[in-house]
């Protein structure tokens, strides 16, 4: 057992999988000699060499296209798109090529790859380097979408993603890179499509993802301490496949459902979860489900404004309290 940062967990997860399988290769901008702009690939170039950790030009289409060509002919590429906002310049691969090839070819073409990317806000980078784009990916049949919130989950879910035979979008939260957590020694492999109850509770279910998980946990502690409200917090971890059973099981126990989403409001993943709960757990609910999201705005650069936009513990706690006491 050792304490590791989320950033170092990325490095350890990548090294674990590259050591295991020589067909695992990495491709991206500044990932090699420079060790990544977020320093999440430091040391891998020296450990695995320039043929397996390949620096590229600023060519996001070529990065994802090359990853796909390598994947469909036998390698297991891990491509890095530096900021998830840049998905917009290579979205053809994410929306049209990776996820549809298996289906269109009646199963002939397989695209086992992982796209790692820095996602989310809190770094004061403004509207084009701070977005939470998980919903852009979740809506596309054929993709899997994973977003870990802790160092141990980074390693286990990254390993599961690399070993998965489908294309996986692996969203690393930029705001979580410096955060720390306990990580066991040895190989760690998790399972995609499994949500995790990170705090047990009886009064309300709060479902969160990535950076919103520690904030939901902080809100739950505040509600417990200040108001005696005992919240269960669920880390979704994987949007596709989606572990609805863990979420609906919790709702059946607590009777209340809250989602905490960093994405702008429209078509957020929480809307899908609320919709599923309305369809399948309506009679378990003791009140309306509530979505706590970033407002439907581009993210501002100012620290004051960005902090107002993205849900924080105080806002989550306040919204839960008002709903329960209203």
């Amino acid at each position, binding site marked *: 057992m050792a304490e590791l940062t989320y950033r170092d967990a990325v490095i350890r997860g990548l090294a674990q999988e590259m050591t295991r399988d020589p067909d695992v290769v990495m491709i991206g901008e500044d990932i090699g000699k420079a060790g990544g702009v977020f320093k999440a690939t430091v040391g891998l170039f020296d450990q695995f060499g320039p043929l397996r950790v390949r620096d590229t*030009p600023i060519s996001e*289409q070529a990065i994802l296209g090359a990853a796909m*060509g*390598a994947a469909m002919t036998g390698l297991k590429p891990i491509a890095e798109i530096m900021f998830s906002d840049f998905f917009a310049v290579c979205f053809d691969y994410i929306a049209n*090529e990776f996820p549809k090839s*298996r289906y*269109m*070819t009646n199963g002939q073409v397989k695209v086992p790859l992982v796209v790692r990317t820095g996602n989310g806000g809190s770094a004061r980078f403004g509207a084009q380097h701070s977005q939470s784009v998980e919903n852009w990916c979740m809506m596309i049949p054929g993709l899997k979408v994973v977003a870990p919130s802790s160092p141990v989950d980074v390693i286990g879910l990254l390993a599961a993603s690399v070993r998965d035979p489908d294309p996986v979008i692996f969203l690393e939260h930029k705001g979580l890179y410096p955060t720390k957590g306990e990580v066991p020694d040895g190989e760690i492999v998790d399972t995609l499509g499994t949500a995790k109850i990170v705090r047990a509770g009886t009064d309300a279910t709060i479902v969160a993802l990535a950076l919103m998980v520690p904030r939901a946990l902080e809100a739950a502690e505040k509600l417990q301490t200040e108001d005696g409200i005992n919240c269960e917090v669920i880390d979704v971890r994987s949007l596709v496949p989606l572990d609805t059973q863990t979420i609906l099981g919790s709702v059946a126990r607590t009777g209340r459902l809250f989602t905490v989403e960093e994405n702008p409001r429209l078509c957020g993943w929480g809307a899908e979860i609320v919709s599923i709960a309305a369809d399948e757990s309506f009679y378990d609910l003791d009140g309306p489900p509530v979505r706590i999201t970033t407002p439907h705005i581009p993210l501002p650069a100012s620290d004051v404004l960005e902090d107002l936009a993205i849900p924080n513990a105080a806002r989550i706690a306040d919204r839960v309290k008002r709903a329960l006491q209203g």
Partner: protein
Amino acid sequence: MAKKTNGGSGLVERPQSANDDIGEEMRLRLYRSQYTLRQAEQRAHDLFLQNMVKGTSHLSLGQEAVAAGFGEAMKPGDLSFCTYRGHAHTLARGVAVEKVLGELMARDNGLMRGKGGSMHLTSVEHGVMGSYAIIGAHLPIACGAAWRAQYKGSKDVAVCFFGDGTTNIGAFHEALNFAVIWKLPVVFVCENNLYMEYTPIADVTAVARPAADRASAYGLEPIVIDGNDADVVYRTAQKALAKARAGEGPSLIECLTYRHSGHSRADPAKYRPPGELEKWKERDPIKIYRERMAQFGIEPDAIGAIEAEVQKVVDDATEVCKAAPPPSIDVLTTDVYADGGWAWRN
């Protein structure tokens, strides 16, 4: 490469009978391939008119020499990456006419059981790694396949076919740069048929030769060839494939050609100046090749036998496809994910 202009229609390389590097056996193969593509595409067109092919379709009538020349030069294991105008390139790698027509007709016997359609013909077992309908997408993908070959030390080459219109999209430029800096075993083949959909390529391109005039920007040799002469295509393909296999990196080849039909099923091609089609039909690849074979003394009987065989293959395939059922409804939700199904939740 000798470059002699032939009016506006392209470049011509005359056969050198004294020193024939191709030979009768390969000539007959090249002719069989071109004739198969011609007959299969013509049949696809006829089946549209009978409303037995739905959706869209982009025919290669008039462009057969490029597909045939590369198809014969490529070895088993080499990989083809095609566009939505991909019927010819798929057939040229040996995929059965029946499988292609079946897919166009959305029958259960089709190459992908009707799940892909005309624009996405794929046959991995023949090295046809897909037909891509988003312009430019497959150039980086071909780079990736070549990267795998380089990394694994295998000797296969990725060959990527695309039209003149593709040279103006970003992925073309990203892929060329990538292929050169990594010295990848990939061959980029531009079929310049003079039109990007309905617009003359010259009207929307900064340079006269949309692919070749960009080559020097990536340190590549500018290569323009007569894309209607299968011998020329075959020789050029052999050279580029050998270069790639030897680890000497990518090539970019611009093949001048012309499509006899419109861009797609919906296009009557009324934008063409009068006489242009007729002029190019004088340089029809099938016509050129019949003359070539006569020049080299190939017996008309041998040619007639090939034509009769091909005609029978296409006719038989048509009947098989007409009798074939539509896809079974269970394939609607198969192969979305690797577990064979479409489940996104528990």
